[in-house]
């Protein structure tokens, strides 16, 4: 390939979001023409993007620079730099961190689509199935774009695509409570969007560019400038912009004071969507971008902003971890409990960021991956339970383990991983975070992690114990399992939970740690 279109560039970087968006628009046409081609088309598209994202990951992994860059429009514009060396136009800049997210999104997206084939008949009105598929592809396109992009303009577009499609998805069932939850979600989401677009404005004002890498070098120049330099006053713009970004992404990541929307929105959506929301959207539009901006763009490190952000993040994450777990304990609905557990887990990820060390950040990335898989698994399981029995309350789940052995076995694996039972993947990432907190000189923070694990045990094992030992609400002793297209994705995710735990050295050493090293220079 012509190297002038970018370093190690691959056309797939552009093709993934483009194909996903185009397919999203084609789906209504296909279902108008012939309904029976709709599902195969969805599966083909998501499978293709899944494979393509793996290909991109391998390319990034093999790349000597650690990233691949695609300069969009080089072919017809012929140049991508201004005289001053400032890049112009859209850039797809994918580093290892983005590639991890990309693979995660598309693989879970594919599994959720397989799962949706049957599950939506129960949770989504018949006439909205086409919209459902359109929105799911838009959502995947948005998140993939976020993972792939290298400039702030493009990022904001994808950010809004992902956000708006997720708002719509929450309300798709049309029930009153989901409309209420959507309203809450849209308001907080719009608030965070305003903060972010404002922050992008300030960033552009200070650096004169929207290209993330170029902005990053400009920021470094401004920060290191002396008091008499003309660049010096711009640093206040940089600080303001950084603060706004952090506030905006904190709302999206559901950190403590702004977590209320999540607990309503995630349970209100159909279960397959809850899995995408909790597993991917919160991460991609929240914490992924938080990491991306504070490290890649603003280049935060120990000596610069770290001394302020580190204690701030530690306090927020500690409160988020504990309050999320405590709220989860008092829940009676399974999906609400899972949603609050997501809040707590986001706290863990922030905890690793707050340490501002390579180990802490790699722990965060690992936990992000693990949580995405485990939480999708748990939400899909709760979806199967609703699909087969209509049970939503934890107390009604008595003896479900005998009625639906496969589902509950997978749920139990997920629950154990959440609690941190070794050797499942949840334990491994907590271990990395724990050792990182010691190495950062803050061993007392271990206690927060351990208390939270205990709280996790209280609410997750309660569900498992009721499912296997509780009194049944309806006495059904025969096995009554969900169809294979729903069980299959769940089993694959459960298997991944075990494999990523036992063989943790591969994701850790070949992905999480190098990604953290590239982010935190």
């Amino acid at each position, binding site marked *: 390939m012509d190297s002038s279109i970018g370093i190690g560039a691959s056309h797939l970087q552009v093709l993934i979001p483009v194909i996903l968006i185009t397919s999203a628009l084609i789906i209504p046409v296909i279902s108008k023409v012939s309904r029976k081609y709709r599902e195969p088309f969805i599966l083909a598209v998501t499978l293709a993007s899944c494979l393509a994202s793996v290909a991109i990951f391998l390319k990034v992994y093999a790349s000597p620079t650690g990233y691949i860059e695609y300069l969009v429009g080089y072919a017809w514009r012929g140049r991508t730099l201004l005289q001053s060396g400032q890049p112009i136009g859209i850039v797809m800049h994918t580093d290892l961190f983005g590639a991890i997210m990309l693979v995660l999104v598309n693989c879970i997206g594919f599994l959720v689509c397989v799962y949706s084939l049957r599950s939506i008949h129960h949770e989504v009105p018949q006439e909205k199935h086409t919209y459902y598929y359109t929105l799911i592809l838009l959502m995947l396109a948005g998140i993939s774009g976020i993972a792939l992009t290298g400039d702030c303009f493009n990022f904001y577009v994808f950010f809004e695509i992902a956000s708006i499609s997720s708002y719509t998805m929450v309300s798709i069932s049309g029930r009153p409570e989901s409309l209420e939850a959507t309203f809450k979600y849209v308001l907080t989401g719009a608030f965070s969007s305003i903060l972010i677009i404002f922050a992008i404005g300030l960033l552009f004002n200070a650096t004169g560019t929207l290209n993330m890498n170029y902005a990053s070098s400009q920021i470094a120049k401004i920060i290191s400038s002396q008091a008499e330099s003309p660049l010096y006053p711009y640093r206040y713009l940089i600080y303001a912009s950084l603060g706004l970004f952090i506030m905006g992404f904190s709302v999206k990541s559901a950190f403590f004071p702004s977590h209320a929307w999540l607990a309503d929105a995630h349970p209100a959506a159909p279960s397959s969507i809850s899995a995408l929301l909790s597993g991917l959207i919160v991460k991609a539009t929240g914490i992924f971008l938080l990491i991306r901006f504070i490290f890649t763009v603003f280049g935060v490190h120990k000596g610069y902003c770290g001394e302020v952000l580190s204690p701030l993040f530690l306090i927020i994450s500690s409160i988020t971890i504990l309050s999320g777990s405590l709220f989860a304990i008092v829940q009676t609905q399974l999906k609400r409990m899972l949603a609050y557990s997501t809040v707590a887990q986001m706290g863990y990820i922030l905890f690793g960021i707050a340490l501002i060390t390579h180990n802490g950040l790699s722990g965060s990335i690992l936990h992000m991956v693990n949580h995405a898989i485990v939480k999708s698994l748990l939400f899909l399981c709760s979806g199967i339970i609703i699909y087969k029995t209509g049970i939503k309350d934890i107390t009604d789940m008595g003896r479900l383990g005998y009625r639906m052995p496969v589902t509950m076995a997978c749920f139990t694996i997920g629950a154990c991983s959440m609690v941190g039972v070794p050797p499942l993947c949840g334990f491994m990432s907590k271990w990395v975070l724990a050792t990182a907190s010691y190495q950062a000189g803050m*061993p007392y923070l271990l206690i927060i992690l*351990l208390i939270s*694990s205990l709280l996790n045990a209280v609410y997750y094992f309660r569900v498992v114990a009721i499912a296997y*030992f509780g009194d049944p609400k309806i006495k059904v002793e025969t096995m009554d399992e969900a169809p294979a297209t729903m069980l299959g994705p769940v089993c694959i995710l459960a298997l991944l939970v075990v494999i990523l735990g036992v063989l943790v050295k591969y994701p*850790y050493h070949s992905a999480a740690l190098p990604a953290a090293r590239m982010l935190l220079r």
Partner: protein
Amino acid sequence: MIKSYLPLLVVMFPLIAMVFRPFVQKHRLYHYTAIVSGVTLVLILYMYPQILDGNILDLTLDTGLGFDFVFRADLFGLFVGIISVVLWTLSSIYSIEYMNHSHSHARFNIFSLLSLSGMMGVVFTGNLFTLYIFFELLSVASAILVFHEETPDAMKAGFKYLFLGIAGGLVLLFSIIMTYAITGTGDLTLIGIGLQGSKWLPWIFWGYIIGFGVKAGMFPLHIWLPSAHPVAPSGASALLSGVMIKAGAYGIFKTIYNIVGYQDIVKNHMGLLLPMLIIGLITIFLGSACAITQTEIKKMLAYSSISQIGYVIMGFCLLAPLGIVGGIIHIFAHALMKGTLFMCAGAFIYKTGLRNLEDLKGIGRRMPWVTLAFSICALSMIGLPPFIGFISKWFLALGALETMRMGNYWSGFGLIALLTLLLSSLLNLVYYGPVVIGAWMSSEGESDADGAHGAHGAHTAHAAHGAHHADSSESGLKDRKSEDPNWIMLTPILTLTAGVLVFGIMPTLPLSIARQISRLFFP
């Protein structure tokens, strides 16, 4: 150190066997568990000659997070492993008959095998990380055995067990993470893991003690034990009391002698060991004192277990070679004795439905063989020669005297330990004595003459227990022939009793192993 896949195989074999469980016929499940544990025993014995030569078998699998999966067999691990698997096999054979009227057989067997794997993992491991994994597996899997009956009592006891186990596990995890973070290793065969001089050492030490102490049933963390052990099916109670609390004692040993190390303790950390010794003594005394007040046989046995684990902890904390020998032999002795006692109690319950000590009067006439086994083990518990219980108490007493001589503690503590041993033996006599004497003494003539009492006893039993129990009890009273359970239940009981007797007379084998272990730590 020799590379060998055997330790890994021993740990994994029950797990692999579990996968093939669905292919086993439903009424052969307990046979299957028994055979799997038997094969595990053979695998362990296969390692025995090499390890007796002083070798260590080891297999290291890298995880890449700064810690490895290490499966390793050394002498102490092998010793505890053999005891565990023997008891496991016998208890599974016992359960073939005992669990006849139970339910959820598949679940019971799956979690029995999982617990076996957990137990094997705890003893056949070479580092803290692997130990933690299997320690947690043991906690969670054995909780299901406590849940098994699904009565409200069992549920309550099970939750208590599960959450205390997990809380303890997390405290343990804290210490393990700190150990790794400070020393960069978790190797359990080192003597003194490298925490010397760290200001965190007391925290880490108490973290380990709390984590392992919960499992061991050490005062004041014993609160789960008296409720959890009696509600489990008797075969499982035998394992819980006979084997699984030993995982905690094993951990406490490793903490004192491998993680901190004798030299360092004596030099700098006597302040840590002194409270441990006192806790050990309190555990002995408290367990016995509570056992006296019990009216239910399995509850009494559970409290007795607390007391006995106190002996083991005391032995380890005496910091004397003979104390270690005594502690290790007591692990062995207690597994045999308490395993038998719980199985006997289960046999009483199974055949007559009687649980209260009051009602067990005269049971010797109805079930002579079981009562004989019960009596022998109770006498051994009290510490009478020529049973194995005497041997271990003898060595603990010698250890206490040796402590006085070695002078690590104020020599009065050796004396106090000695007195506690004697006092506790007396207390054991107080609560085991009447049961044994009552079982044999109150003859049928008396029970006929005292008809009102007998009928009362039978009535309470009928009211409390299921119909089939009542039937068997009534027919038993009529026929007046032996009501001993069939040979499937009797064989494990008698085998263990024979062990109590044989090793009491010829304690050479366990003694030589225990001495060899203690020599590692006191060169």
